[in-house]
């Protein structure tokens, strides 16, 4: 089966490319990136600030049920070309991952399909690999937590 989302991360390089084809017209795909209430729905984070313009800033946050911030990311929008391209910086607060540069391009394929290309550049190749391993590590942690939950119920 052809995978809809593809990642191209070459060995030893400090960048990667994420591509995805959508069964959505270009206008709708782009809207999902610029309307805070839509972004919140698919990203799962709260939009604190989003200035969709050249030299604008952005800030997203996610809280748990107790109100603790579990994810906070922010950056500046370097360039903003509607329905074509967004260039921004991205930094996750309280993590050692540094800042990354994200160049997101939006392309019309047909009237009802579109393509997204996200080029992410990290401070170093080592840093890129740490970010890449993050979901892998989280997966292991989550499995552990679940195991702990099950074990604690057995007592």
């Amino acid at each position, binding site marked *: 089966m052809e995978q809809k989302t593809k*990642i191209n991360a070459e060995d030893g390089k400090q960048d990667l490319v994420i591509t995805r084809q959508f069964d959505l017209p270009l206008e709708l795909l782009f*809207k999902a990136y610029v309307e805070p209430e*839509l972004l919140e729905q*698919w990203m799962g984070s709260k939009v604190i600030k989003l200035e969709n313009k050249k030299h604008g800033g952005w800030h997203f946050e996610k809280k748990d049920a107790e109100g603790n911030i579990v994810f906070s990311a922010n950056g500046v929008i370097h360039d903003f070309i509607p329905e074509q391209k967004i260039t921004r910086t991205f930094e996750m607060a309280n993590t050692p991952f540094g800042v990354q540069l994200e160049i997101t391009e939006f392309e019309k394929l047909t009237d009802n399909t579109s393509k997204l290309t996200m080029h992410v550049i990290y401070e170093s190749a080592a840093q890129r690999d740490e970010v890449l*391993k993050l*979901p892998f590590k989280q997966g292991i942690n989550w499995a552990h937590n679940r195991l702990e939950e099950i074990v604690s119920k057995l007592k």
Partner: protein
Amino acid sequence: MNLRRDVFQAIADPTRRAILLLVASQSLTAGAIAANFNTARPTVSKHLQILTECRLLEQKQTGREIYYHINAQNMKAIADFIEPFRKMWDDRFNKLEAVMKDYKPNK
């Protein structure tokens, strides 16, 4: 889990990555591997030792010679480490697609 962490350390080194590429195409002796590098023989031996300890390489005695083979299963573990990252973005984009398919302008 420890195995995987070690595996990542093992492939962090460019010489070790080059050794893996070399052995991937054919099984070789330590001497034949070392002949491909300008590095001192003991340095190559050290790299081979690390790769063997991380179980990316396996030693096999053939007559008087010891040949190094690639451990395909553990190499696959490296190829798969990117998959959770891809899956995370795939899930996120699937959500985006679903949200926008339900989207009605001017509501």
